[in-house]
């Protein structure tokens, strides 16, 4: 079955994006990428540690030719900071994709919708492929699509919280209304969370903490992949509507009494 995810004209077999944060070591991280069959991985941009510039970094540990690199603007609190970080990320020369995050709130890490929309417009104009991280807001999702974002990435729940999808109905509305892929991002804790997102028609999921901090990241990455595949297939197959009453699966006639 040819069921590709297409973002900005680029086709992918995998519908599981993986983050690169919080892993205990690079060996576990690469094993997780492998087990997930990941094709898109996110990275963050930071000042180089000049006290030890020769130290091995993420760039030494990942086979960059294998993945589509999705740099994020994590840590940015305003549109201006996010645009600057995006420009620096592009100057690294690996990708013109950007996972746009404008997050002024350090407790719940919820994104600023106004700053996100403003930064998205500017980045689209500058030729970036923009994947904005947003709250589960269907109206904002439409506005971002209208200004030319390549996807929308509504959160399931706060980053790293592992709560799963707390606002299922809102995500469903976003999926219904979007013409661009919907990538459910943040807060997914288990494969069942990812499967549920895919069952309602999300195009992909982004997972970091749930894999990186699992006891066995590679095994959890595989489980997430299977959850996503199961959810996707169920969506394509078309689930039955929920009903209030039972209906027998076996014939009601001819029962021996």
């Amino acid at each position, binding site marked *: 079955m040819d069921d590709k995810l297409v973002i900005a004209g680029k086709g992918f077999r995998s519908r599981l994006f993986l983050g690169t944060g919080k892993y205990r070591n690079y060996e576990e991280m690469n094993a997780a990428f492998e087990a997930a069959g990941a094709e898109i991985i996110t990275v963050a941009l930071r000042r180089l540690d000049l006290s030890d510039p020769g130290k091995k970094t993420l760039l030494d540990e990942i086979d960059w030719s294998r993945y589509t690199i999705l740099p994020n603007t994590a840590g940015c609190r305003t549109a201006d900071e996010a645009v600057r970080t995006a420009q620096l990320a592009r100057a690294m*020369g690996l990708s013109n994709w950007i996972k746009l995050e404008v997050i002024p709130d350090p407790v719940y890490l919820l994104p600023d919708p106004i700053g996100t929309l403003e930064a998205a417009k500017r980045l689209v104009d500058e030729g970036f492929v923009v994947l904005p991280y947003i709250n589960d807001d269907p109206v904002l999702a439409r506005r971002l699509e209208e200004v030319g974002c390549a996807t929308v990435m509504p959160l399931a729940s706060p980053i790293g919280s592992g709560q799963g999808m707390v606002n299922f109905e809102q995500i469903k509305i976003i999926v219904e209304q979007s013409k661009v892929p919907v990538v459910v991002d943040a807060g997914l804790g288990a494969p069942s969370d990812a499967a549920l997102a895919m069952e309602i028609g999300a195009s992909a999921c982004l997972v970091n903490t749930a894999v990186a901090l699992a006891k066995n990241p590679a095994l959890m990455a595989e489980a997430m992949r299977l959850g996503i595949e199961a959810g996707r297939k169920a969506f394509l197959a078309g689930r039955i509507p929920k009903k209030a009453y039972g209906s027998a699966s076996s014939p009601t006639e001819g029962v021996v009494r």
Partner: protein
Amino acid sequence: MAYQISLNGKPERVEEGLTVAQLLEAKGVNPVRVAVELNRRILRREEYTSTRLGEGDVVEVVTFVGGG
């Protein structure tokens, strides 16, 4: 003569005429593994050898790290 610059948020003394390429080399930085911003303008890698630092310059040297 030496200039005072800001390098990744910290004060740094550099010799007059020092280029960005020389600064990176002196710090042991592999230039293809970073992006460099000088006074809020991103430098293309071709510019590193021709760009000389001056008094009060603000230099940011960034790279990719793990993130979600």
